[in-house]
């Protein structure tokens, strides 16, 4: 997938990859094709480029121009660069000269970002490393609720449909700004 995005970044139609050749992926993935390297004659599997119409990524800081910082352990910058349009949900809106990546962050330029949504706590119930942890109790409650239709409906009503905005959602799930 990462190489598919890499191809997407450069608008290339496909990209050769190592791997897959001796796996069962070739049985179940008709989009994986074989191609001979014209230079060496060695066979490779090629994968089509991935160019999402939209990407929604979570970012830590953002400015009004669309410059953002995002976590380096993730592949969000690559995703933003490969997608036709990208929405960045940011924890914090700052001035452009303050969009500076921290120890575990990278900078992504405004040219790749089409909209910035300011939503502190926006990653909940997953975590935003360095800011707040994953809400394990809420995740467990969701997993339990998702087991059957009526409990899932109840979850939807309580946490998604009833809160009229993000602030109410955070209040409803008991999100604390210190993240604990």
């Amino acid at each position, binding site marked *: *997938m*990462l*190489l598919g*995005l*890499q191809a997407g970044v450069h608008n290339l139609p496909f990209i050769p*990859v*190592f*791997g*897959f*050749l*001796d*796996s*069962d*992926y070739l*049985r*179940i993935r008709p989009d994986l094709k074989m191609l001979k390297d014209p230079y060496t004659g*060695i*066979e490779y599997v090629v994968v089509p480029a991935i160019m999402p119409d939209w990407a929604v990524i979570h970012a830590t800081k953002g400015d009004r121009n669309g410059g953002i910082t995002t976590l*380096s*352990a*993730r*592949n*969000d*910058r*690559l995703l933003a660069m490969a997608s036709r349009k990208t929405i960045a949900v940011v924890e914090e809106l700052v001035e452009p000269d303050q969009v500076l990546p921290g*120890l*575990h962050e*990278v900078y992504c330029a405004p040219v790749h970002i089409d909209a910035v949504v300011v939503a502190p706590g926006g990653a909940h119930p997953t975590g935003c490393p360095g800011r707040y942890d994953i809400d394990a109790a809420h995740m467990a409650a969701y997993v339990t609720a998702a087991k059957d239709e009526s409990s899932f409906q109840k979850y939807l009503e309580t946490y998604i449909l009833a809160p009229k905005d993000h602030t109410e959602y955070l209040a409803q799930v008991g999100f604390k700004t210190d993240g604990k």
Partner: protein
Amino acid sequence: MRKWGSKPMENKTIHPSERMIGAIARLLKNGERVATGTLSPIPAAGCFLAKYTHAPELELLIYGDPENRLSEGFHELFGLAQQGKIDVFFLSGIQIDQRGSVNLSVLGDYRKPSLRLPGGAGSSMLYAMSGRTILFTNNHNRKLFVPKADFVNATGFDETGITPWRRGGLSHVVTPLCVMAFDFSRKQIILDYVFPGVTVDQVVENTGFDLAVEGRDIPTFDPLGETDLATLRGPVQAKMRQVYPLFARTIWGAETPSE
């Protein structure tokens, strides 16, 4: 994440995961560059233990370790592996077969599986392009060790020569019972040694394929010596509480011991 048991361990009792950590540490050589992926607490602890004991020059790329600063994302690790810059990687699976192929995706028929897991595609490349790969699993039974995997995400070696670019493959398999090795002449996984308190028969009974034990002397060996154990429960534990807090709580309890 899997739970290994919730009781804090008595001081002298060795948790099966601790022995696996010791076994992994011994498989790593000083100076190697070693990477771990997501959900790999036992390999991570094995890497830290090796580094804090016999392999101080080990270069660690532990996913989730705040001291491990990568420039960006998993594609950076993939690039390193493809360039031959990763000496050792770790994989697990829901099935491991006699040839060392791993299944990380489905049990049963692919279209109507009894279990379906996400991801696993990166394993195909990493298994082929890392210098060598150590498999680890918390379960040693016939459901996991099967003659032939239902679905092959990644192979342990190139049987037919179709991947001339392949760099490496399976070296060892570490389980709660034993360490197994990949034998290139037999083209299969064989039993290497068993942990204290484990019999060869017990391993054979819990493995769904032949481990080539006949006619071979299989030693009993404890990979976790006294110094290793002290280091494991000291600095390695402290490090693991930071990188894999849930795992650390499960193995060593909630309290940090006063060292």
